[in-house]
């Protein structure tokens, strides 16, 4: 705990800025119903009303309060991206560790399958699968998680290949520990640093990916509030010189920048400690 505080005090301003952003977004997401003035899908006024004390950021194309939608959007977009990234890591890390621990044909088979999956650009692949399975929330989460787990697989396999050959893993095998025990208690703790950094980067990627899909009308479906679709639905305002629709887009960019700053610092720190 003390070491963590010490590290925090030494963190560069960019990392502190990134952490502040992340905390702010998490706060918005958790307390969305308390902070927001109206309900998520509540129609409160006319279409496209101006900024006013009643509607802080005006209203959207259906007369819903923009500020409310923005706050709920934090909850939905970030929540879904987070769940998807977690799922991608569960699949990717398990497969990657299995491939490197078992080796042989398991490794060959999974690696070749991943090679082929990665040969198709993920946006194109996701669009193909969304056509087939439809754009419901569960299929969105599972499709993106599976596509993204290929990247996680590559990294966790590479990292754990360096760990599997260590003496302590050998000792653990001789002691008769099972595969699951070795993966969980010997490999995972030693692979943590690069995996945590990768989690941040993958989260950004997934977050941008889902926003892009929602913007295209194929991601999170209405009436659920979401930043990507908010931009698209209100984009007409931009041609009239009203920049409100840029706020959700900017919110996406800001969070991604924040996470990237923190990851940069973390990578710098953990790689510095190793050298």
């Amino acid at each position, binding site marked *: 705990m003390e070491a963590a505080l010490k590290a925090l005090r030494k963190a560069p301003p960019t990392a502190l800025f990134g952490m502040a952003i992340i905390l702010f977004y998490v706060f918005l997401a958790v307390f969305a119903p308390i902070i927001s003035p109206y309900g998520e899908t509540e129609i409160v006024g006319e279409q496209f009303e101006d900024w006013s004390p009643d509607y802080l950021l005006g209203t959207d194309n259906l007369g819903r309060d923009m500020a409310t939608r923005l706050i709920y959007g934090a909850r939905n977009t970030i929540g879904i991206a987070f769940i998807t990234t977690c799922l991608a890591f569960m699949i990717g890390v398990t497969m990657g560790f299995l491939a490197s621990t078992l080796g042989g044909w398991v490794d060959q088979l999974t690696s070749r399958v991943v090679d082929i999956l990665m040969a*198709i650009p993920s946006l*194109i692949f996701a669009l193909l699968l969304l056509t087939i399975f439809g754009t419901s929330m569960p299929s969105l989460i599972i499709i993106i998680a599976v596509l993204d787990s290929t990247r996680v697989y590559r990294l966790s396999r590479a990292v754990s290949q360096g760990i599997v050959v260590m003496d302590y893993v050998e000792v653990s095998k001789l002691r008769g520990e099972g595969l699951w025990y070795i993966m969980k208690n010997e490999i995972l703790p030693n692979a943590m640093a690069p995996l945590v950094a990768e989690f941040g980067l993958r989260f950004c990627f997934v977050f941008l990916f889902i926003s892009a899909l929602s913007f295209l009308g194929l991601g999170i479906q209405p009436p659920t509030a979401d930043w990507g679709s908010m931009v698209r639905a209100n984009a007409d305002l931009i041609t009239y010189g009203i920049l409100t629709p*840029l706020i959700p887009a900017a919110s996406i960019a800001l969070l991604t920048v924040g996470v990237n700053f923190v990851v940069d610092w973390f990578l710098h720190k953990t790689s510095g400690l190793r050298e």
Partner: protein
Amino acid sequence: MSQILTMVAQRLALGLLTLIAVSLIIFLAVELLPGDLAEAILGQAALPETVAAFRRELRLDLPPHERYIEWLGAMMQGDMGRSLANNREISELIGVRFGNTLFLAAYAAIIAVPLALFLGILAALYRNSLYDRAINVVTLSSISSPEFFVAYILIAWLANTLGWFPSISNVHEGTGLLERLYRTALPAMTMTLVVVAHMMRMTRASIINLLASPYIEMANLKGLSRMRVIVHHALPNAWAPIINVIVLNLAFLIVGVVVVEVVFVYPGLGQLLIDSVSKRDVPVVQASCLIFAVTYILLNLTADVLAILTNPRLMHPK
């Protein structure tokens, strides 16, 4: 020399294998549907006779491997079947649009590649300087922004406030080259901004990597001029990573075009793909995905082959 040929041949064979596997995936993905395509499209209320007729029309009554071979053969001859939504020939729908997409991607690439290489090499040479740090923050924010954010900022600024460019890129077959360049300026700029950031960071990283190698230090210690070190010592070995960076980003451009086309209502393949996904027009989605995937794989393949061909260690074997 024969060593190079073997390596290139191996890489090409692997590429061909990947292409076949990818076409299989795109074809077979439809088989994952619960029930089949006919049921999914016609809905549960459809009469059994209608479903049966539809199946015959789509040749769903044949086993999958026969249909795959037939589909692939027809695709290679340019016959992509008919759209389910409007029954038009898919090749007709795709032809012009794919040309438009390639035009836009090439337009962006012509601006982006020299710019990114120049900025990246500069950042590597003056690393940790104020310029390097500033450009690091700028490129990071650019990478972090969704493409549509960049696009709408450009629309709000260059199209609405200043009125320099149109915010909608409507081109058709009769549009002349200059007019076309003018109308697609904003989408091209959007893609340039997004891709320059990536390309620049990759260029910077590969050059820094190179400058850290012992033979460059040796050249510096011999007292050679900075210019000579870079042109004669660093550059021959830098070609492979630089070409790699360029081609990878071209592949990225081809795919990144999808969102940008939608923002600017540009009649390209990306927009057709998005429309067809929302209509669940499976044959069109399959054909467009195949075209995108093949372009992407071929570009990656080119990157790998060029990297082998420009590797000085392979070109001058001992």
